[in-house]
């Protein structure tokens, strides 16, 4: 790997969001992640880079892929990984987030990966803990590792981001994935579009330097990448969208809508998918267009790169 004397890959000991990263940070992270893609495909996937270090996964919201991805990344780098989910933590017994932080701090972890339902939770923990904090999703604010793994996936297929048209479709309003991707992709020179019914678009979306569409046909026209977002089940029952069938009819990605995009356009989804809601099964399963499985693989490699980058600052 690169020499410890090189310029730091990350600007701080925490990774709280895409906000605060520079294009150079992102390129360096993606370059480092490429080496872990190779390592992840080797027979011996394990190194001792983080031997003796402790990584705590603190998840206040249930997650399968992000949590297991971090767990695997930590273990492949030799760290001791502990998973704490909300059901087993003392938060369910009334403890405040700050109390939980103090308790965890006393255990002297080196890296805390946190997912919380409230925006700003990771930021708060980073100020109360001595260790590095990685934001694995805070409310509708940021999910930086998802945006970075998406960027890694895109770059492996398209080489660069400059001028790439990326349509982010679906529940933008509640999506931290959309916010982090929007920040990262715009910073790297891509043209970002948001496509959603008005009930699922944030107020003043136009002011974020993106193009906003309320119909898929025009939103997907000429797109290089179609990034679908998950529609939470509780949003479907009339509050934001009248029904699943109406959502799928107008906003679900099927072959007909995808045909509006540029020939060879690629489809992404952060998972878990709602088949027949935001995406048709034949698109999700079409290996010619769907990068969904690859995103998962890139997720592990990218998270190893982040752990590596943070560990260098700890030495």
């Amino acid at each position, binding site marked *: 790997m690169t020499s410890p004397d090189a310029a730091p890959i990350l600007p701080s000991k925490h990774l709280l969001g895409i906000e605060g990263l520079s294009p150079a940070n992102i390129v360096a992270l993606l370059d480092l992640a490429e080496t872990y893609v190779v390592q992840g495909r080797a027979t011996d996937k394990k190194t001792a880079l983080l031997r003796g270090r402790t990584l705590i996964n603190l998840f206040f919201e249930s997650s399968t892929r992000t949590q297991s991805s971090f767990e695997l990344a930590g273990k492949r780098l030799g760290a001791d990984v502990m998973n704490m989910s909300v059901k087993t933590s003392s938060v369910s017994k009334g403890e405040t987030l700050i109390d939980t932080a103090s308790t965890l701090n006393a255990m002297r972890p080196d890296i805390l990966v946190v997912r919380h339902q409230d925006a700003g939770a990771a930021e708060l923990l980073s100020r109360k803990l001595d260790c590095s904090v990685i934001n694995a999703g805070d409310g509708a604010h940021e999910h930086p590792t998802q945006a970075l793994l998406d960027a890694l996936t895109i770059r492996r297929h398209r080489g660069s981001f400059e001028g790439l048209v990326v349509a982010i479709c679906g529940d933008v309003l509640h999506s931290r994935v959309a916010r982090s991707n929007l920040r990262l992709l715009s910073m790297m020179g891509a043209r970002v579009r948001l496509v959603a019914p*008005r009930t699922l678009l944030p107020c003043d979306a136009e002011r974020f330097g993106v193009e906003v569409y309320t119909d898929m046909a025009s939103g997907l026209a000429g797109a290089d990448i179609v990034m679908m977002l998950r529609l939470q089940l509780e949003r479907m029952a009339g509050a934001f969208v009248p029904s699943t069938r109406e959502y799928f009819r107008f906003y679900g990605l099927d072959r007909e809508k995808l045909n509006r995009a540029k020939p060879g356009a690629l489809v992404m989804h952060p998972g878990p998918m709602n088949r027949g809601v935001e995406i048709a099964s034949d698109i999700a399963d079409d290996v010619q267009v769907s990068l969904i499985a690859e995103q998962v693989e890139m997720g592990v490699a990218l998270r190893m790169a982040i752990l590596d980058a943070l560990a260098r600052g700890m030495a």
Partner: protein
Amino acid sequence: MKRIAFRNARLIDPASGLDVKGGLLVENGRIADVGPRLFNDAEPSDPEVIDCRGLVLAPGLIDCRVFTGEPGAEHRESLESASNAAAVGGVTSMIVMPNTDPVIDEPSLVDFLLRRAQATAKVRVLPCAALTKGLAGETMTEIGLLKEAGAVAFTDGDRSIANARVLRRALAYAATFDALVISHAEDPELVKGASATEGEFATRLGLPASPAIAEAMMVERDIRLVELTGARLHFGQISTRASLEIIAAAKARGVNVTCGVAAHHLSLNELDVGAYYTFRKVRPPLRSEADREAMVEGVASGVIDVIVSSHEPQGADTKRQPFAAAAAGTVGLETLLPVALSLVHNGQASLPHILKTLTEAPARIFGLPAGRLAKGAPADLVLLDEGEPFVVDAEKLHSRARNTAFDGRKFQGRARATFVGGVKVFDAR
């Protein structure tokens, strides 16, 4: 090729400002030609010639607010019986409210309504779909699918959406599909149980009453939500000066909002309830004379876009009750034009202006191809005599329900013949 030639007519087309003596040619259900020189000199050689003898030939009326009993209460009014009254009233398009049983909140029910209308109604029937499921004011309907099925607008009819959050989301969602939302502005809690407008008269009669501001409060709220969401909103009917002033101010600052007034709120005030006359119990209730005058001013100034009948059939069972217990509503398809024309006879508005509120304006708001005398437009026409005096006789109405608020009232001017798509559906000449 089916051709009808109208000659010797006073052509009034509010959409183009045309008001001239002339003729009009219908071919295959559409207007093929119209103008002052048409059929002036020679007798046209077409098989069917209608000599209008100087009567007004105008676009057929579009009534934007009609309740029927179909489906669910056909004993009160069916699409067919309502369409009979419409044809006699010169109304060629009825925009029907979704307050039926079942409620029109499913694409298949819009389809049903359109097919029933096609099979039974003499005039065009344009269905509104519910804005919230079951008119419960809680969850929005499938606006995209309903619009594809043929719903022209979305409304809970005579119910207000009490929950501002629900309305905000429904408006935002409707804006996504450029769908028109029709609002009924009455604060539901303030008007609960009321049957008259609060004031001296209601107090004398001892009637449960609601304050007139119950309307203006909701008008203001809805307009603020329209500004937030970018939706298109139409108030089905307003009835007070306060509402009028709020809408005038909103229009002046460019808000995409329109409104209607019911014919009875132009011609009756709260005193007309007299001795508990339940046929004049309507929703919103009849207002003060000052508010009635404001409605007339609003029509004249153009702040009020459309005049509607708010045709609402009731039976003897629901009307022959003590006033507070009686159902609200009056039929109005046959009296819409005569009441509207009374503004012309009173010197409050010109004939073309009044016809505009019944033709061009509703067509523009609802995005309909009808409502104008233009080449290629549907041949929906009314031949009317604006001066003919007559007395309303409830027994002789053509709707199944006869609960008119105007029984025994004298009017001047009514339809003499009505054509829908070039087909004569009424002829009293």
